[in-house]
């Protein structure tokens, strides 16, 4: 097991190197950072000088190697846009994104799984059809539209919830949390639901599909014959046997919640890494983009490692095959 993890971590270094490489190969296509760094009166010569100073006219391989060299020493450079060290910048934005992702993942799981089970068991029920349909409406509209409709209803018409931002935050060391204040919680509701909607639908449908499959198996029949209560059959036996695909997708979705909370964060002006990233794309803030992508790569490597470990935890049949 330790061996497995160690090998994975080693591989993750390669993953991150590859991510960095691709990232630098594509930064040329994102735009030209210089125009965002200077005012309109700055002369062409000054612009050229700045470009040269930043090494932006070097071939991307040179830029990449330079970045990797510095990153290896823990130096991710200075943001072009904010002129602050990137590591500091990302650290200040990470808590917001992680808290949002955590809550919406929780919502997606806590609603998605029971609804999936319900719709699988009561396949022809009215409520099942309602769940299945409504959840689809949620995913077939773009996130920005859903977000704005939510703001319109809950922020503007009803005025129950703040329409943007994170509310009051409490500092705990370098971490900032919105979990300790009322306005923090209120602010969290809309973005978390918006973000969770898609994942919830996916999880619900997957759980349903897998449950239908598992409920046909002989061991479920035998569990019935043993007189086990339905609850136990559904949750302990059936649900657990559906978990392999569900874990996979949940893991991936959790990763993408963190990685792609971009739109939600933008709509709700949620001060997290996604918003930072979209602004960085806008400003072609190469150091921030590079560091962000590496961080996301790292998250995914970890998440996928956990998913693979969970496979082993959930399914004993997979456990002994690694040799």
């Amino acid at each position: 097991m330790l061996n497995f993890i160690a090998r994975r971590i080693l591989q993750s270094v390669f993953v991150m190197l590859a991510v960095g490489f691709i990232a630098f190969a594509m930064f040329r296509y994102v735009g030209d950072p210089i125009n965002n760094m200077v005012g309109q009166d700055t002369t062409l010569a000054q612009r050229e000088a700045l470009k040269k100073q930043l090494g932006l006219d070097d071939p991307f391989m040179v830029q990449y190697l330079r970045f990797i060299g510095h990153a290896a020493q823990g130096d991710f450079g200075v943001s072009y846009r904010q002129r602050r060290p990137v590591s500091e910048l990302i650290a200040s934005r990470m808590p917001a994104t992680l808290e949002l992702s955590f809550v919406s993942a929780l919502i997606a799981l806590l609603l998605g799984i029971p609804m999936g089970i319900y719709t699988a068991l009561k396949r022809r029920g009215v409520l099942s059809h309602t769940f299945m349909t409504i959840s689809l409406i949620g995913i077939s509209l773009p996130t920005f539209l859903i977000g704005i409709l939510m703001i319109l209803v809950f922020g503007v018409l009803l005025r129950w919830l703040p329409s943007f931002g994170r509310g009051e935050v409490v500092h705990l060391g370098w971490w900032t949390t919105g979990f300790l204040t009322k306005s923090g919680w209120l602010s969290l509701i809309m973005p978390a639901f918006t973000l969770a909607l898609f994942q919830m639908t996916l999880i619900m449908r997957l759980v349903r599909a897998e449950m239908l499959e598992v409920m046909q198996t002989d061991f479920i029949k035998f569990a019935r014959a043993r007189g086990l209560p339905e609850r136990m059959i559904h949750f302990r036996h059936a649900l657990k046997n559906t978990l392999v695909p569900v874990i996979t997708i949940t893991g991936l979705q959790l990763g993408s919640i963190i990685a792609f909370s971009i739109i939600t964060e933008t709509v709700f002006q949620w001060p997290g890494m996604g918003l930072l990233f979209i602004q960085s794309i806008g400003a072609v803030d190469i150091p921030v983009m590079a560091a962000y992508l590496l961080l996301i790569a790292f998250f995914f490597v970890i998440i996928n490692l956990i998913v693979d470990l969970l496979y082993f935890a959930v399914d004993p049949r997979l456990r002994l095959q690694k040799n």
Partner: protein
Amino acid sequence: MALLDIEKLHIEFASRHGALTAIDNVTLSLEKGEILGVVGESGAGKSTIGNAVMRLLEPPGKMTGGAVSLQGRRIDQLPPHQLRELRGRRISMIFQDPLTSLDPLQTIESQLVETMLVHLSLTRQQAHARAVELLESVGIPEPRLRLQQYPHQFSGGMRQRVVIALALCCEPEVVIADEPTTALDVSIQAQILDLLRKLCKEKQVGMILITHDMGVIAEITDRVAVLYRGKLVEEGPTGKILGNPDHPYTKSLISAVPRPDVKLRRFPMVTYIENVQTDSRKDLDIRTHWLGQARDYGRHDDTPLLRVENLGMRFVLKDAFLKKNRRMLDAVKGASFTIREGEVFGLVGESGSGKSTIARLIAGLYKASSGSVIFDNVNVTALRNEAGLNAFRRQIQMVFQDPYSSLNPRMRILDIVAEPIRFHKLASSEAQTRAIVADLLDYVGLGQRALRRYPHEFSGGQRQRICIARALATRPRFLICDEPTSALDVSIQAQILNLLKDLQEKLHLTILFISHDLPVIRQMCDRVGVMRHGELLEVADTETLFAHPQHEYSKHLLSLMPTLHFMSREGLELEKPATLA
């Protein structure tokens, strides 16, 4: 008032091609402390009756008539929560397919304990203690360690015993046991039957015992019911039915039971067919049939076809980072034997002794931990390239012990059986393929209708026959049969064993035959190996073994073989005069 009453039961499986009547007007009753045997043709509807009593019929199965009552109370209409209290607690059932009855993701312990906690007012510790006790009573060694394991770590027979333990753990009043001992070796079988009998006599439990094994019927049942194509054809006290059957079907059934005491040239076939249908069985002439064509491997020298040398297989039971914490299990240790071309080699032995593991090693499904398998002078264990392996695989086929999981649930039977033919392009046209498949299915006793159905629509025995048909469809040179007939009624069993015999005799098919059924082994095999705890204890000619077993364990095994001398011998084709009394 009987303990359990089944009255005029009628069950149908509806489909859009018409309804199939699985049970037609069957009436049975069971008294306290009584063991009622149910025998009959495979697919006759025995399991269906059990399922109906438990209200676990799979859709589209439906009870269309009749009543089931427990101690005079109708139970076929109970609301779900009352039903739940009934199941497992008052009536429990042992399913025919022990290999898939267990949740693959839960340890044996958690499945046992949860059942007890639901029905009995026990603490977790008490339940655990009882679980250990139960496993011990069904003859599983090292119960404490085994409790922590998962179903896939158990051999077929061990899983069957776990299922039995699960069914008995709440001391039910009625037990429906569907083929509870098919996967068990004789000594364990004796132990289990003893357990069941004690349960019935001491605790006044009523039991319906569904089985194909006439030895078992003879040994423990009080009464026997004979089922044929969904109908009850005869019922009566065991001695009467076995010794002096009335109905022509029962008669031919009994004549087909393999005898341990005499060796037959061919098995007698059930000749009784009530209303002849289109799918009536026709005999195959192997010499002219496709099955017998192009089978010359160009070699008839004296070197054995298969040589197994010092074969070993070790499973990891508990993995750990530190070597000293790991627990390994030697499922097979240093097994060596040879099989000549055209020989039938039998493998018998304790359940969990490693027979299936050897079979899988030979078939190349497991990688051996040590030793080698040499097939046709090629060391297969050392083969790496695909081409070589494939050439070898075409010649070897295997019938798996578990007929439930060895069929792809999403393929029709036609496609399953035709697959090897199509894959190796053994037939010249699609039409011929279909004809061949139809012949094969016909011969294993499944009609044309089976072609377009899916595996789950078949009874256990029917699935096993599909597996056999598929294995034969490659026209193999070497066939591994892992309990090929355990779920078959004697009539079908006879037919299939005859087919195998024919293939062996006429085409030099080589067979590795694993079975618990000593009479069958005796009838089928030229030489036999005896296994226990992963070791091959003794290899001998069949007759020598049965007459003069060398090893203590072999002697013990043979002593437990049931004798069926009270059954009539009329119409048997003896190979040579009876040697044993």
